[in-house]
Structures are given as C-alpha cells and as structure tokens.
C-alpha cells in the first residue's frame, strides 16, 4: 500500500505554544533553527531537535537537545530540555488553558525558543568558551491559552522562569495568530493545495524579572510565520522575525522541519 500524504495541521509558530496537544501515541520529530547577527557580535545558528510524544490526550511530553554554531568561534552542544504540557479541561472551550512545566540544563544557548527577563543583545557578546561556563539549570512554567474561532487560532503564553541558583523569577510572553489559507479541504489529493499552508503573526519578548518588572531593557520580536504541510508527514516552517528595540537582535530568520510518526509504539508492537 502506498503511503498517503498527511496534513499535520501544525501551527506555524516557533516560540508560541498553542493549546493543541500531540495526538496520543504519535511522535513528532522536529528540527528548529534560528539565524541571527547581533550588533557587535558574530552571526550564529541556534538549533534544536525536539522529540514530542503524545502520552495521553491531555498530556504531551517533549525532549529537546540544543546546539549552536557561531561564526569565527565554534560549534557546541548547549544542553537539553524536558517539558510536559497538561490540559486540565477535557473539552473544547472558548479559551483553553494548558499548563506547561519544563526543566532545562543549558549554557550558551542561542536557539531562542523563549525570551524572558532581560534576555537581549548583551547575552550574545561573549565567546562560546566563556558563555558556556554560565550554566542555566532552570524551571520554566507557562500558562498557555488557546482559542480556535472560524479557522483562526489565537494563542497566548505567559512565561515565568526560575534559575535554580539564586536568580530571581524572570517573566516573558508570547502570542500568535494563524489561519490556513483555505478552510475547506480539496476533493482531490494535492501537495500544494492552499489548505496545506498556514500563515500567521507571532510576537514575543521579555517582561523583566521580579525586581524590575516591565519592558525596560528587554528584547521584543515580531514577525510573520508560514508553514506548509508537505506530503509524507512533513511540515516545513519559516518565519523572519524583527527586533523592535535596540536591545533586540535586528533580524532573526527561523526555519524548521518536522516529521510525525503516527502511533509510534504500535510499530514495535506490530500494529498497523
């Protein structure tokens, strides 16, 4: 039997989480990259590979491995993260909350999967050998709120992160909206049907920390986002993002590719 193309219906967001969970039993493998050139520092490529598994309909678990390459410097493994998302309400509501809890152990990370506190351009000034001495063992929590309305997805994240050393709580946010280019599906199979493309806008940034809450000395980004659900369970995503102040990297180009394995454990059990 030929394999059939699948519309994965992933949202085109790189930083913002929607309330939609991974289907139970499915494993999503994704590589996300961020390319940027901070003023006064070297160009970098931050990258991570994610393994996202649907444990239950209401519980998704994800493991990340991060790395980065900096021009005129080095390429290094920067650490790992393990996150879990829990959906407390078992029905679809106007606004759907999801609780996110993550442990991360990273250093010199440049994947920029979230921006919190006073993260900004100065963090990119140090060479890798120096930056990786600053170990970040952190607990990160998010309140994810998501809504689907007439084909639009609206997602908001409120982020609170605590370094397990004696640093204060840091805060951040992310929000995004997106919509497929066409809501109804085509009556024939096609790789480039408009319903396979989703476009949207994503914005995120830091909100300071416990002692200096607000936008002062924080970085803020906004940009359009697009993805294409290609045949063969692949989704390709792209987003150019723009820094909104001098504390932000002027431009970050993000691109990602994900592959979904349906009913992953069934492969080993000999299921179909």
């Amino acid at each position, binding site marked *: 039997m030929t394999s059939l193309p699948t519309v994965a219906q992933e949202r085109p967001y790189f930083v913002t989480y929607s309330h939609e969970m991974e289907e*139970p039993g499915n494993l999503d493998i994704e590589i996300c990259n961020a390319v940027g050139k901070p003023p006064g520092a070297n160009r970098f490529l931050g990258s991570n590979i994610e393994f996202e598994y*649907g444990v239950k*309909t209401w519980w998704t678990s994800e493991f990340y491995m991060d790395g980065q390459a900096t021009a005129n410097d080095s390429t290094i493994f920067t650490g790992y993260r393990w996150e879990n998302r829990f959906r407390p309400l078992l029905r679809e509501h106007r606004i759907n909350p999801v609780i996110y809890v993550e442990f991360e152990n990273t250093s010199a990370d440049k994947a920029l999967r979230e921006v919190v506190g006073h993260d900004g351009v100065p963090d990119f000034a140090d060479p890798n050998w120096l930056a990786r001495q600053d170990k970040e063992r952190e607990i990160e929590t998010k309140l994810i709120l998501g809504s689907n309305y007439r*084909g639009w997805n609206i997602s908001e994240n409120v982020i609170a992160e605590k370094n397990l050393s004696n640093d204060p709580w840091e805060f951040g946010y992310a929000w995004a909206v997106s919509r497929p280019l066409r*809501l109804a599906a085509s009556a024939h199979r096609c790789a480039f049907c408009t319903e396979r493309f989703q476009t949207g806008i994503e914005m995120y940034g830091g909100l300071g920390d416990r002692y200096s809450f607000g936008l002062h000395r924080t970085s803020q980004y906004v940009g359009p986002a697009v993805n294409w659900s290609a045949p063969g369970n692949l989704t390709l995503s792209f987003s150019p993002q723009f820094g909104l102040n001098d504390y932000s990297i002027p431009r970050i180009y993000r691109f990602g590719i994900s592959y979904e394995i349906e009913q992953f454990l069934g492969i080993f059990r000999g299921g179909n």
Partner: protein
Amino acid sequence: MIRRLPMLLMLVTLPAALMFATADGAWLAQVPAGDHQKNNPYEKQPDAIAAGRIIFEEHCAKCHGRDAEGVKKRPSLKTERVQHQATEGDLHWLLLNGSMKKGMPPWAKLPDPQLWQLISYLKSLHE
C-alpha cells in the same frame, strides 16, 4: 452482617454495571441540544464526501482503520450508533471536543468546514 450482604453487593456492583452500560456512546447524552440540531452545510455533497474521505485517511484511519471498522480497542465508525443514532450535529460535537478520557483527541484544530466534510464522508459509509 449476612443480612447486609446483598445490600453491600449491590453497592459494589451497581456503579460497575452503570459504567459498563454507559461506556460506549455515553457521549451522545452529553451533546447539548443546540449542537445536536446543527445541520451539515455539506450534507451528501459528492465533493465534500470525497474531501472527507481524504481527511479521514489522513487523520482517522490510523486508529479507526482504513475501512472505518475499528482497530483493536478503537471503535468502528460503521455502527448503528454512528450511522443512525447520532445526528451530524452530534458527530460534529464529538469531533470538536473529543472524548479525552477514552483516548479520542479533540479535532478542533481542523477548521469547521473540514469537520463537516469528514462527517459527510462518515455518514456516507452506510449507503
């Protein structure tokens, strides 16, 4: 104590019996009246049925089988309940909300027109 035994047995077995009685199709009783009466804008349209078949194969067939007759513990969609007892509005409500305790995820991430196309296909299976 012996006199109380039947009462105790009843207390233990009644909830279990009720659970079994409502295990399949209990969701039907939970559908609000407004959703129950919703009409499918694509009802019996050949293009919608064709599109719904593609959506089914892409999202549903892995669990419910390519022929919709169920896989292992995942139920058949050709049953009397799905084909006749449930209205199209009922199925729309189920797809939107899922039945998360039983492992059926919500499909609210699919746009509404695609849910209705999928329902058109499901309802065509008995014909």
